[in-house]
């Protein structure tokens, strides 16, 4: 039985209470949740607060011209990809052209032909679904299905920013498959791909719901552990490391795969540390783990006192990737 609260939200911005009542009844059997705004200001606010899957927008309202609302929606990055169906009693082609030029997805004239409105609404919802799918694809690593590096950068910057605003524990583990090149050289690239896929699967099953596992690049993976102290994160990291050792690889059962992990956690105050230099510190620990013989976790508390070179930006810098294989 589908849960109605999972239905996509459709925001209706129209100054006429008659239209709200009418559509509430007429769209009752659609798989949607209808949200009401009786003026442009409330509509914009609602759209930004919780972006709906589609907006039905009246052009003629006393407080603001619907075109202005459309312009505002398209200028805001949180709302600009939401499909907008313009509703209007005017049917001049000039208005239609303006609406489409401003980014409207569709245009429906009042009084509504209901079958047509429903069909157009469904088309807009399909478009919204496709747009989301595309956006997801841009953040997903094709080989492993984990978040990719762009996704990691975004999530990590968000988590560090949250931690700066509201001090709480946070940990980052950078994990790198040991001697990965040997797998590729000895067993071929398909075997290498299987190792990367296997590591991803293991990471997802060993880490917790709140953790974020990403493929950072090559054979390197990142694990963000929110609300987790360094000792607790070390437990997770060790569990991950041991789980990988136990995997039997169908293509090379005699060849065990291991990984080295650099972990840096903070129990709260992150001081001068940024997302970028936190990542650099985790990289250093990873380097130490490699140098000390691999297949181990090197962990430390975040050094929040040092002003690191790349603090101008919160995005991980390119020079932080230098890695020992």
């Amino acid at each position, binding site marked *: 039985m589908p849960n109605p609260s999972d239905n996509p939200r459709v925001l209706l911005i129209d100054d*006429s209470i*008659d239209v709200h009542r*009418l559509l509430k009844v007429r769209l009752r059997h659609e798989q949607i949740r209808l949200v009401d705004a009786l003026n442009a200001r409330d509509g914009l606010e609602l759209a930004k607060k919780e972006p709906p899957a589609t907006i039905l927008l009246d052009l003629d309202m*006393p407080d603001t011209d619907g075109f202005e609302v459309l312009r505002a929606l398209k200028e805001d990055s949180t709302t600009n990809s939401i499909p907008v169906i313009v509703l209007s*009693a005017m049917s001049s082609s000039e208005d239609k052209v303006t609406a489409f030029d401003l980014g409207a997805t569709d245009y429906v004239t009042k009084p509504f032909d209901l079958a047509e409105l429903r069909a157009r609404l469904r088309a807009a919802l399909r478009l919204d679904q496709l747009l989301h799918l595309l956006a997801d694809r841009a953040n997903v690593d094709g080989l492993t299905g984990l978040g990719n590096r762009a996704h990691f950068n975004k999530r990590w910057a968000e988590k560090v920013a949250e931690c700066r605003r509201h001090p709480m524990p946070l940990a980052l583990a950078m994990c790198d498959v040991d001697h990965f090149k040997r797998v590729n050289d000895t067993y071929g690239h398909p075997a290498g791909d299987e190792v990367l896929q296997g590591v991803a699967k293991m990471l997802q099953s060993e880490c917790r719901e709140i953790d974020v596992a990403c493929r950072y690049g090559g054979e390197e993976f990142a694990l963000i552990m929110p609300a987790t102290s360094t000792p607790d994160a070390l437990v997770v990291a060790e569990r991950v490391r041991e789980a990988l050792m136990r995997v039997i690889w169908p293509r090379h059962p005699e060849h065990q795969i291991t990984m080295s992990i650099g972990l840096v956690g903070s129990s709260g105050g992150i001081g001068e540390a940024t997302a970028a230099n936190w990542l650099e510190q985790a990289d250093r620990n990873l380097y130490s783990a490699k140098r000390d013989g691999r297949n181990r976790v090197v962990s430390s508390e975040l050094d929040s006192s040092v002003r690191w070179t790349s603090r101008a930006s919160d995005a991980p810098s390119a020079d932080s990737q230098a890695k020992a294989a």
Partner: protein
Amino acid sequence: MPSQARDGRNTDAAIHSTFANDPDMRELIELFVSELPGRIDEVRIAASSQDAESLRRLMHMLRGSCGGYGFAELGRLAGRIEEALGCCAIQTPDGEGALDNVRAEVHSLIALCARVTAAAPD
């Protein structure tokens, strides 16, 4: 004794919603019809106080909603009045001339609204 229009239509006859037999719509139509007299009062007030902009907005609302409630003829008439007000208001900023041009149509709209009923036809 019902009066007859020149075209032979009964001008006292009740106007039913084309959705009057749709159970989904019954309650909505009743609400719409019950609120109509209040709106017509607003139309009368706007017309008698020469308030072309208010009248235009009222017509716009009726134009947009009447059709959806099954009173397409009303909606079309409101639309014609809205358009007449829209274009003439530009020529006469006080709106007085504009109102003169639509007075007859506003009266027929008021008369039509008085005949609207939420009941289903027999």
